[in-house]
Structure formats: C-alpha cells, structure tokens
C-alpha cells in the first residue's frame, strides 16, 4: 500500500482513459456521439500489436493503430452524417463490427508476447527528484504519459481559443448558423469523428504497447472505452476535467487491486485480505464509480445549464428547419 506507487500507476492507466475521453470530446463537440470507442480502442490495440510485431517498431505500431481506428470511425461518420441514421444505434453497430474485426485479425497474436517491442519508459531528469510529485508524475513512466501532459492544455487551447476550435464548437452547437457563416458542417463533422477515431486508436495502442502490454482479445480494453464515454459527461466536454477524471479513475483501479494485500488497514483487520472472494466486490468499484461520476456530472450540468453540445445526436440536414 504505497500511496505514491498507487497514484503513479493511476496516472499510467489514466492516460489511456485520457486519450479516449478527449477523442470522444472532439467527436461530441462537433455534434456526433460515437459509442464505438470501445471497439475502436480494440482495433487500435490489435493493430498496434500486429504492426509492431511485423515491423519491429513500436512507433510504427502506434501510427498504424491510429490510422486503423480512424478509418473504422469513418463508417460511423458516413452512416450518421451522410445517411443521417440514429447515432446511438450506429455507434453500437460500430462497436460490434470493430470488435469482430479485431478478434478476427487478432487471432494468434497472444502468443507473440516477448517479441513485440514496447514504447519507451523513462524518468524525467530533475523533475523526478521532486519529493512526492516527482515520484507520481515523472518517475519511470511511459512516454505516452508525458505526451499526455502536453496534450491536455494543447487540446483545451485548441477547442476554446483557436479559430478551428471555434468552428468545431459552432458546428456542435448550432450547425445551421455555422453553415450560413461558410463553415463546412459535414466536413467538420467527418474530420472530428476521424480525430476521435485517431485518439481512440492511440488509447488502444497505449494499452497494448505500453501500459499493460499484450493482446488478450476482448479483455484487452475491459470496458475502458465505455468508461471513457461516461467520463466525457463527467468532464462536461472539457479536457482538463477529462484528465482529472481519467487519472482519478486510474488510481482507483490500482487501489482496488492493492486493497487485498495488507492484513491490516488503519490498524483494523482487512476483510478483503482474509476472504479473497470479497475481491469481486472490489472489482465492481470502478464501474460503480462510473455511475457515481455520471450522477455528479449530470446533476452539475443540469444546475449550471452548460455542457452538452446543443446539436449532439441530431443529424444536420441542409435546408431543413431547426437545429
């Protein structure tokens, strides 16, 4: 029960959630709800693993993973933007399809364990010496974690302070108005669904090439894509809150694993240590917390009347009345 260790590994596993969540934020900010995150992450994890094994380069794996998931996301984009189908049901379909593809193409990858290269891990010199914080944030992390630190403020800045970010928000809030201003609504939506796919692929690759290396079929992502979609609501479409949620979640997952270890907690005997079957209740905690986060996020959003992009889930049809 080393608190620094738990928080540090929380940062590591939270990074996966961070990328997936921010990817979904981009997609939803443009007005397209993509429930296929879990499937796209699986595609990413599988493609990364396969490509890294074939080329013997983890970076190549990362690139292929992003492109593969980005490509798959375009199916959802086509169905919802061009064919104007319901976004929920199309997202679910994408999930089935992507899971199927990754299981078919991932056949036999499990046995490749020790030959697949991983993304580098290192400590940041200087910063890792800071007491407490250094050990949590800068010591022996995957490079993806450090990229994540830069990624959070950059995406926030992009969405809230740049012209393309303004266009993105306009398309998600009021596509008809955006259209009259000459913003290409359809193109923007396709683009950000693609960005969401890229980042989901990145998240998947981060799992299989770095955070918990390997390919374990559908268990590789273990519902993290769905947790990411839940975190988007908690994060109220804001990358900073997404990072906070992701890291908290990561730490929670790790804490749950570690709770079974010690015989005593705060001087009291630890029931989880003496009856290993209570461990199943510990494993529920991340999922219960997702629901709790959702309750918090939803009621805050209700109170402040902010958050959900107004056109989220609605198809945009040129020349029709309404949003």
């Amino acid at each position: 029960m080393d608190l620094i260790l738990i928080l540090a590994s929380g940062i590591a596993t939270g990074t996966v959630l961070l990328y997936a969540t921010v990817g979904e934020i981009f997609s939803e900010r443009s007005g397209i709800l993509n429930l296929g995150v879990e499937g796209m992450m699986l595609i990413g994890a599988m493609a990364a693993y396969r490509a890294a094994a074939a080329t013997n380069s983890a970076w190549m794996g990362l690139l292929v993973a992003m492109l593969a998931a980005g490509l798959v996301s375009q199916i959802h984009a086509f169905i919802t933007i061009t064919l104007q189908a319901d976004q929920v049901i199309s997202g679910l379909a994408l999930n089935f399809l992507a899971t199927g593809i990754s299981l078919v193409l991932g056949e036999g990858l499990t046995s490749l364990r020790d030959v697949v290269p991983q993304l580098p891990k290192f400590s940041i010199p200087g910063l890792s010496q800071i007491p407490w914080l250094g050990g949590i944030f800068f010591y022996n992390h995957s490079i993806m974690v450090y990229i994540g630190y830069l990624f959070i403020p950059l995406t926030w800045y992009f969405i809230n302070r740049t012209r393309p970010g303004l266009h993105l928000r306009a398309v998600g809030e009021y596509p008809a108005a955006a259209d009259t201003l000459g913003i290409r609504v359809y193109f923007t939506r396709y683009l950000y669904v693609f960005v969401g796919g890229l980042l989901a692929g990145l998240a998947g690759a981060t799992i299989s090439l770095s955070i918990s290396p390997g390919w374990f079929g559908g268990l590789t992502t273990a519902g993290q894509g769905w947790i990411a979609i839940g975190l988007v609501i908690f994060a109220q479409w804001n990358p900073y809150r997404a990072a906070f949620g992701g890291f908290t979640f990561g730490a929670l997952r790790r804490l749950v694993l570690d709770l079974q270890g010690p015989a005593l907690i705060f001087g009291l005997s630890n029931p989880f240590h003496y009856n290993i079957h209570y461990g199943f209740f510990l494993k529920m905690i991340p999922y219960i917390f997702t629901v709790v986060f959702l309750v918090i996020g939803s009621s805050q959003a209700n109170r402040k009347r902010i958050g959900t992009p107004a056109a989220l889930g609605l198809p945009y049809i040129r020349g029709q009345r309404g949003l």
Partner: protein
Amino acid sequence: MADISVKESAPKWKFPFKIKIENRVDNPPRWLSPVLSLAAVVIALLIGALVIWIAGGDPWAAYTHIAKYSLGSWGVLSDTMVKAIPLMLVGLACSIAFRMKLWNIGAEGQFFLGAFGASMVVLLPVLPMEAPKWQFILVSAGFGMFFGALWGFVPGFLKARYNVNEIISTLMMNYIAIEWNNYFIYGVWSESGFQMSRMFQRNAWLPRLSDLAKRWPFFGGLTTHFGIVFAVVAALILWWVLSKSRWGYEIRLIGDNPRAAEYAGISIKKNIVLVMIVSGALAGLAGASEIMGVVHRLQGAISPGYGYTGIIIAWLAKLNPLAVILASILFGALILAGREVQPSGIPTLIQGLIMVFLIASDFFYRNRVRITRKVED
C-alpha cells in the same frame, strides 16, 4: 463547363443517369422494409465470406457448415432453438426499451442477475429439494424476472431522477453483474472449490422435449426446453401491449415525439422506470430459463454475449415482437454453428456487419432514390 467540352476533340463520355435522393413523403410500400432487411443480411454475409476468404478460410465450407449444423436435422434444429430461446427474450427486452428510445444495453447484466435469481431458488434454497416441478418452474421464473427487473430499475431510476445517461449506466451494470455472480460462483455456492455451483437436482430442471420420448420416441434427444413457452408467450403479450394497449401507445408516442407525449399528459419519468423494469424482467427471464433449462447450475460462462446480440435482433426485427422470434432463430443458428468456424471472431464480425448494413439500409426506407436518364439541354 459547356464551352470547355466544345474544345475537346473527342466527345467526353458522361454518366448517362441522374441520381436524385429525396425524402419519402408518402408511406413506403409494405414489402420494402423486409426486403431491405433481407438485403442487409445478404450483403453482410457476402462481406463476411470475403473476410473469411482473406483470412485464408473457405467461405462456402464455413457457411454450409453453419447451415448444416444449425438447421440440417431435427437434432441440431432443436439445439438452434435452445440458443434462440434466450435470444428471443433479450431481443424482446431490447425491443420494448428501444421503442421508447430508451437505450437499455444492459440486457447482458440483467440476464446474469436472472440466472442468479433462478439459482437462488435451488441453492439458497427458497424451495425444498423435493418440491414439485411446476413450483420450481414458476418460482425460479419469478425470481429471475424479479432480479432482472431490479437490475433494470437502477438505471431507470437514475435516468428519471438524475438524468443519468442510461447507455453508460446499463453497460456498467453489466460489469457489476458479472462480478456479483462471480462472488457466488467462486465463494458462497462454489462446489468444493470449483468455479461453479452444484448441479441442480432433476426436479428443478425445466422440462425438455426429450422428456416426452417415452410416449413419442420421435422426441428422443431433443434438447428444446420449456423456456420456449416463456419466450413465445412473452412475444405475444408484448406484441399486444405495444400495438394494441393504451400503455403501448404511450411508449410509442414517447419514443416518436417526447414533447407531444408530455403535452398529452403522459409521464415520461414514470414510463422510463416502468419500461426499464419490464425490459430487465424479460432479460432476467432469459437468464432464468437458460439456467433452469440448459446449464442446470450457476457458473461463469453462461452467455456468449446474448444480451448484446439481443440489440441486433431487436433492430433486425424492427422492434416488432413477433419478428423477434424469427430473427432470434437466425442468430441462434449463427451462434450455435458459428462456434466451430475459424477464425473464431467471425460470428461476432457477421453480427456487426448485419447491424451496420441494417442501419445503412434504413436510409432507403426514409428516402427515395430516383434514377433518371439525363437529358441533354
């Protein structure tokens, strides 16, 4: 454009047809919807064949295998029905919820809790060991429905009270349900440390067709169990409720136009909770019938993703409870005989493809595509 083409030496070939897409104003013909669904399934199977071929398999052999080992004889047809029973019930569970645009994708978890509830009747025990069969049938179905309904109630309540997105909450409840069952499978009801409960005594099993073999030898070895009665009766009731009853009208109105429903004085919140309870109860019944009719003990691997396949079935059946029966048999065949098809992800992939093409085909239901000959002007 026009003066450029004049300068060209050879006349440029032009696509001779004009494709125009327009919204359907009138009601589409009755045959259109089933034809489109069929086309979607056929295209999905063709692409599935392509994938099998690319992966180095023989698509023709794979599909004939699936057909032969799912519908080829009375014996395998009966096994297909065994797979179709839980699919019908979860398909119905999804249909009623989706009809209200309530996205219950937690049928898998409700199925697990239904299995838990039915097992409880035998293992706790709720009924004495030697209680008559009809009592076991009724009580275990009731417990299964109750626990499934409970699992549906939680996300329904959270949605009605706190506006919590039901897609995520029902899905999280799936993961929680698996761990909940595991606690009992590995711990409380574990049979001497194995990851399963003891085998239920025979009088707790649902009756099977093969039980009739003494009188009619034809039924010997047929595994189809009493759950099919649950499924068909549930489908008939649900069909009546959705298309004939006042409550069904409310559900459909909320699904099509929630604002109009609200003006009409229909309580959306009350219906969210009610529909989630009914949906959960149906999925719970699926779990109960699977445990009492097929598995006969509580263990971990009781579902190859029935709850998720139910989503596709509901969509293929266009949320029509009677069509759910047919769609379930198709998917029962795919799940039963698809187990031996290599690579092992193929059945999942085909399910995904069917769903994608179904949704895409809706476009042609909502829009009319006119192809006309271009007239030079």
